[in-house]
């Protein structure tokens, strides 16, 4: 990335040699991302991140196909970018069906099928849920949408680079991905757009990215995303195995020592590095702060929704009682995590949960911070 910030400073759109040099890097990055998706490099459009990609797909896709219908299907456990883009479509007069995920956060093909109408033009179902890690069967959903001639978009921000994502096998028309989820830079992402799919661009300008996403390219970010994609492709299988093992080790350790804990999301069809656990009687936010003070970073709900103490809408949509939603944390394991770190994390969590539970027992009822009526 530094090379393209400090030395190779050309604009990929320029005709001169500096521009051509930059263009080569841009094309290399297109190739890298396309290789992980099993698509043509021409079908990859770089954006400012997953959120912009989701918006381009939902709003741009729906508006461009309005002549064919006005009904859009999304699931009720999508990331706020998809959720709010769908809300915006509704404000613009589209009809939205929000299909319910099951108690594990899985969106079933049958549920999508049941929601089809003659006016459906677009379906959006995430490949992997960002909060609980559940993996949806996009291949099965893609078969349905292809049969009906309906566009399929999947928010693949959590799956790209981590588990196989084959847009051909899945019959995907649109897929969003993001750089910082695969150890690339923040502020960069991409949208896969199947050749022939019509999309209204969100803004207007020059001819970059086939006018779908104009603007001088964020070349350092794009290069970073491309290299991250290459590394993921090389290491995906080994990493998935390693992370699954570490994750299972962590969860087992917690189960051995603590009672009244539940795993949220599907027990087996889940992202290798994801754990989302409810600890009964413990406020998730308090546990997060306790871990932070010990140098361990976890989250409650997606980063885009932090700042309030409302329980995660995704967990509630899955049918978790508010107290359990309020008492959950999400841990995502990654490349840099070692076995020692996992073991230490388990110990810190166990100690913190015990302490929080003990103090909660001693506190008078009216000073408990968990709101009962959410």
């Amino acid at each position, binding site marked *: 990335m530094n090379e393209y910030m400090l030395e190779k400073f050309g604009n990929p759109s320029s005709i001169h040699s500096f521009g051509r040099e930059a263009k080569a890097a841009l094309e290399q990055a297109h190739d890298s991302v396309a290789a992980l998706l099993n698509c043509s490099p021409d079908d990859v459009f770089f954006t400012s991140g997953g959120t912009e990609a989701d918006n381009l797909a939902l709003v741009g896709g729906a508006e461009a196909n309005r002549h064919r219908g006005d009904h859009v299907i999304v699931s009720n456990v999508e990331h706020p970018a998809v959720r709010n883009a769908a809300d915006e479509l509704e404000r613009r007069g589209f009809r939205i069906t929000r299909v319910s995920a099951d108690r594990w956060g899985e969106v079933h093909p049958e549920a999508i099928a049941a929601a089809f109408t003659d006016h459906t033009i677009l379906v959006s179902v995430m490949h992997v849920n960002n909060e609980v890690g559940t993996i949806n069967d996009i291949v099965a959903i893609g078969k349905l949408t292809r049969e009906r001639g309906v566009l399929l978009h999947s928010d693949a921000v959590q799956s790209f680079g981590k588990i196989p994502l084959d847009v051909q096998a899945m019959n995907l028309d649109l897929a969003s991905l993001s750089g910082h989820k695969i150890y690339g830079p923040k502020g960069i992402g991409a949208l896969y757009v199947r050749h022939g799919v019509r999309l209204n661009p969100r803004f207007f300008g020059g001819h970059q990215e086939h006018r779908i996403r104009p603007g001088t390219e964020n070349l350092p970010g794009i290069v970073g995303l491309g290299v991250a994609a290459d590394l993921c492709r090389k290491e995906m299988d080994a990493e998935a195995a390693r992370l699954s093992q570490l994750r299972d080790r962590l969860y087992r350790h917690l189960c051995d020592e603590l009672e009244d804990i539940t795993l949220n999301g599907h027990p087996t069809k889940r992202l290798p590095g994801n754990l989302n656990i409810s600890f009964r009687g413990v406020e998730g936010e*308090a546990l997060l702060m*306790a871990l*932070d*003070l010990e140098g361990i970073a976890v989250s409650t709900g997606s980063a885009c929704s932090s700042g309030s*103490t409302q329980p995660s809408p995704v967990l509630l949509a899955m049918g978790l009682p508010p107290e359990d939603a309020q008492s959950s944390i999400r841990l995502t394991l990654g490349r840099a995590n070692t076995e020692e770190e996992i073991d230490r994390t388990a110990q810190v969590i166990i100690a913190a949960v015990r*302490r929080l539970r003990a103090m*909660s027992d001693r*506190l008078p009822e009216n*000073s408990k*911070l968990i709101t009962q009526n959410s």
Partner: protein
Amino acid sequence: MSGGVDSSVAAALLVERGYRVVGFTLKLWDAEDDDHARKVCCTAVMARDAGRVCAILGIPHYTIDLRDRFRDEVIEPFASEYLAGHTPNPCVHCNSRLKWGAMWDKARTLGLQRIATGHYARIQAADDGSPRLLCALDNIKDQSYFLWEIPAELLAVTIFPLGELTKSEVRKHARRLGLPVADKEESQEVCFIPRDDYRTWLLNRNQALADGQLAGEMVDREGRVIGRHNGYPLFTIGQRKGLGLGGGTPRLFVTRIEPETHRIHLGEKKDLDCGEFRVGSINRLRNAPFDGRNGYTVKIRYRDPGIVARVTENGNGLYISTDDPARAVTPGQSAVIYCGDEVVAGGIIQ
């Protein structure tokens, strides 16, 4: 940490003394309008400024949402007090129920062992080693008046780093430490009331008041009706403005508010003098009972210089009598009892 210079310097001094410090910003209320939201102590501004200070000090910073608790334990009682014809003091309850209450509970669950604020007040050990709450050295900035409701058992874990400093010394520290809040304006008002206009706030909240259902008569000392008012909760003891009586008459003041009859009693300045009053909802910071001896000073409002008083036990409450009369003793306000510099007890004037 409100992002203001006081709490920022308090945190910084503790870090310099070698404490392991964690900064908390409390989200207590939602802004009523954009103007209100831009006030110095709105949560987003507070959190941002406090966050910058914590980043400079290298300490963790968390914002905790206590809106529900604040609404139930500060805002609701505040409104109810006005409807009861009293003049409440919400900052007192915010301190005891939110800061030394909910926030302290949360801090304890994280294993933290002390609570500190930027209040101008002091904790000092008495001869027997027990902690005492004292007024600040800076008379003008002293905020001990608002701290009487702190549970006595929490004095031992409370630290007030600013108690021996003047405001200008605090600002000097802020500049020395490079804190960006050194010259920040202070907020003096009740934080959740836009522009400190509690009358408009009450009118917006209470339909009966807005509809004029709490209007009534204004009567003089002889009981003669001399005017009408538009709602008794909008008045306070000692008030002389806004009575709608025009000039020429001897200056009249509100001397009593009767919620049952909606009547507001008016009198002359001397009618505001009061030599004895009852205080309830007592909190004692020192365990000794009051035996009617002299030697105490009582403050009946913030910035009151204090008046010499005798204090006696009176059932669950206290009975206070003074030789020189106090002016405009107002039910709902706090009466804080000092022995020298020490806050011995406090309560609500009945």
